[in-house]
């Protein structure tokens, strides 16, 4: 089992390390053939407009959409959450995503970099030290979306079927529970 980390732009290395510490084999993937060969896909933190532009330029948008719709497990943090959202609020003009989770993600909802913060939040009812960097939140979650975490009433972690997304960056802290959850989701899909 190999989990691909989408290596167009962003904190790819941190996700690869987090996945390997969670018992998975992980590698950066950039080309469609590499993505198709993976058993699961992580979309890292980064700049969502850049991820969109590069995915469009290298003709990955539609094929990855189809892979996700076809049941490929995927996990996105921050910009990755935006890329997995069916709708984006406060996006750049015409901003597109892979989609898959029936939700609206609001970009930079927590503010600019001077507002970026870390603190303990509840994920799945348990405390988790979370790092938010120009983070989005989930403004609307559809009926099939399970809310896994909230911060001050804002949805910051969700799951829908084989898709997982967090507004914060579990790859930047040593706690591996979120990546372990995703690894178990990928194993469960085999």
């Amino acid at each position: 089992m190999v989990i691909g980390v989408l290596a167009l732009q962003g904190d790819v290395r941190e996700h690869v390390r987090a996945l390997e510490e969670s018992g998975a084999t992980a590698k950066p993937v950039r080309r469609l053939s590499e993505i198709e060969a993976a058993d699961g896909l992580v979309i890292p933190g980064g700049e969502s407009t850049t991820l969109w532009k590069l995915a469009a330029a290298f003709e990955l948008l539609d094929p990855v959409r189809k892979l996700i719709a076809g049941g490929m497990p995927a996990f996105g943090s921050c910009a990755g959450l935006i890329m997995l959202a069916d709708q984006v609020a406060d996006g750049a003009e015409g901003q597109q995503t892979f989609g898959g989770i029936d939700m609206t993600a609001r970009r930079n909802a927590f503010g600019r970099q001077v507002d970026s913060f870390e603190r303990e939040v509840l994920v799945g009812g348990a405390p988790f030290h979370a790092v938010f960097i120009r983070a989005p939140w989930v403004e609307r979650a559809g009926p099939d979306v399970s809310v896994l975490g909230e911060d001050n009433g804002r949805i910051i972690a969700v799951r829908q079927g084989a898709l997982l997304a967090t507004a914060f960056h579990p790859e930047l802290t040593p706690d591996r529970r979120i990546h372990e959850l995703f690894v178990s989701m990928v194993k469960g899909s085999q």
Partner: protein
Amino acid sequence: MSTVDATSSSQANGAPAPETGTARVKRGMAEMLKGGVIMDVVTPEQAKIAEDAGAVAVMALERVPADIRAQGGIARMSDPDMIEGIIGAVSIPVMAKARIGHFAEAQVLQSLGIDYIDESEVLTPADEAHHIDKWKFTVPFVCGATNLGEALRRIAEGAAMIRSKGEAGTGNVVEATRHMRSLKQGIRRLQGLPPEELFTEAKELQAPYDLVAEVAKAGKLPVVLFTAGGIATPADAAMMMQLGAEGVFVGSGIFKSGDPAKRDAAIVKATTFYDDPDVIAKVSRGLGEAMVGINVDTLPADQKYANRGW
């Protein structure tokens, strides 16, 4: 420093207080820029072009380095109106430059909501002995470096991101190459030293021992390393990435070229596929004229920006 804390109201819920401006939050922001291109812009229109081309951030400037060279005079922080115009024009992060040592310019930039401050040798230094104490700020800083000792001194002062200095505004990549190689050689050298030699090495590098030991162990800087200064073509970006840069700043190379939008997008693609010559070849076609550029050897010593900072 004042912090703009949009989330403090949540403390009423009994949730722990959010911590802003931590080293993790500052360095983490740079991690999110990796693999990306940060572009110098002087107007909201240029910022839009950069965002449309896939830039991960823009650097708001009054004049690009090539114009600072041509026009001379004292180069300072940009006008707040101009910075706010650029912040309002794009959804991606906006950086801005403060003069070396000019903490009051940095205070102003933080109050404007800038996402990253570049304490930059491209502007005229305001202090000949001291850089800004960057730990005092909520906003993170990126600083230039020509070698490992300089990079570690800046990190000790609180820089959350390092870039090569290169020689800005020349369109000539040779100095960026020198600095990237020097930084990487410095790190490799530390990795090969026995622990007892790191103490003297720290003295030689004029850097704190703890940082020297950390780099020797990790084999990398504790913060993200970008390249800057003279990058003008997709192949320049690809070369810098292969030399170990984690991302690219481009300045005069874009808006001093024939077709900025196309060159922007090409450098973004080349930075992602830096190790794939087929992609670099494809995106390098038909970009129009590159900036003319300057041969660094012909620059008088007092016009070499890389010598500024210590």
